[in-house]
């Protein structure tokens, strides 16, 4: 089984971090992984994306051009990438940031007001994790326990309190049915 995942949004929305969590989950399960950030003269507010490939086989090109799973956190990324999702793939869209809707019927699209949900629940900047929660709920790739391990591995001791917040954000996304 191979999952090619693309996460995209603005710099500062935690795109790379969300990708890293998926990569660490895969590491714990002994999968082949590649994690590739877009990099450039970019900054908070600039465009940002992250390719994550998780597979049982050795991975060729690490660039995800036609994702099985797409996570988008802003309008420009929606315009740039929705057309590239593999037929049969799934897209997870932060509908509080993206006004557009896709007319594609060959993919499953989940609109989650992730930024709004995060803000309403005192989880500012948690939209990335809310969408990740929805993605995991819909695909079942990794359990929440595995994500907790990944969070523990990637959270410095002085920010340990954010682990529970992130777990709450995951649950918010998973529970969102709208």
């Amino acid at each position, binding site marked *: 089984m191979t999952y090619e995942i693309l996460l995209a949004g603005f710099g500062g929305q935690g795109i790379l971090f969300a990708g*890293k969590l998926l990569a660490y989950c895969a590491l714990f399960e002994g999968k082949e992984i590649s994690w*590739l950030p877009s990099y*450039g003269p970019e900054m908070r507010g600039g465009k940002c994306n992250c390719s994550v490939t998780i597979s049982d086989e050795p991975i060729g*090109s690490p*660039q995800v051009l036609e994702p099985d799973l797409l996570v988008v956190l802003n309008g420009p990324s929606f315009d740039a990438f929705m057309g590239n999702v593999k037929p049969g793939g799934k897209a997870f869209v932060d509908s509080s940031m993206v006004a557009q809707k896709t007319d594609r019927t060959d993919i499953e699209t989940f609109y989650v007001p992730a930024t709004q949900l995060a803000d309403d629940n005192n989880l500012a900047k948690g939209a990335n994790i809310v969408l990740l929660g929805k993605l995991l709920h819909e695909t079942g790739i990794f359990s929440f326990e595995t994500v907790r391990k990944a969070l523990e591995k990637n959270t410095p001791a002085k920010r340990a309190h954010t682990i529970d917040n992130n777990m709450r954000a995951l649950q918010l996304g998973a529970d969102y049915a709208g």
Partner: protein
Amino acid sequence: MEKVLMKGNEALAEAAIRAGCKCFFGYPITPQTELSEYLAKQMPKRGGVFLQAESEVAAINMVLGAAGTGTRVMTSSSSPGISLKSEGISYIAGSDVPCLIVNVERGGPGLGSIQPSQQDYWQATKGLGHGDFHLIILAPNSVQEVVNLVTKAFDLGEKYRMPVMLLSDGLLGQMMEPVEFPEITPSQADNSAWAACGTKMEREHHIVNSLYIEALDLEEQVKRRYERYAKIEETEAMAETYLCEDADIIVTAFGATSRVAKSAVNKARAEGIKAGLFRPITLWPFPKAELNAACKNAKAVLSVEMNMGQMIDDVKLALDCRLPVSFFGRTGGVVPSPKEVLEELRKLNGGAQ
């Protein structure tokens, strides 16, 4: 040891410390910065020296100085920085001292772009400075291979008393993959015959120098160096082959591009196109015999590179032009897609579909 996730640049830095590298001299540049950042944090804690020089030119001359004392030493940069270092690299080659030079390539010429490229193939394999000389050029294609080749690079440099380059690129440097650090005990080759590390008034001076007043002396020195190069060409070439045995079309690609090529070869095979992949791991020495063996049943060769066509020259030379060799590449920091390479394979296999 358990696998960890690391960026190519960070893994390279960790591997260098584990390989016994004691000194790093460099100057920051994207996309290699994580490498020097990692060493800046770790070297002082682990018995080494990290020094950010005032320029690339200064850094490479510090490398020459440290290498002359027989110390395991390295520098790293990206394309424009390597150009600046080329004078010093020529001096290092002319002084017959070992060191590791890392080039995390980006787009050129000039300041170019900071995205991945392989536009320095010619520079690395044919012209890294003035004079008759070579570097051994190692071109890994995964984070794990980056780690494995770092120790090898130091060992080869000391074995043959010459600079070795590890040619990476922005893609390999920035991507994270699971990686394992093999248990190694760094073994430094005996350098007591040449290292300039103090006579203690007990022996003649060792002189590390690249200047020869008498032309005949220099000629002899260069010829001796070329005897070593001949031995390296005979014994140190490395390559990987993938599905070449029955292949009609052999794709040649190195470094990150070979990953793209491998995806394309797999897609081609799924369509019934008999494609295979030949990946040189050493770019100098170029694995000529290995390429010829891989091409024994081939009818055509496609060189895929992140440049306008540089390695293709060595592919043609190695094959004595007995097979048609075509080229596909993207340049300036653009990474080719497997689909584009597949399209070329379809054409070679009998027309576009």
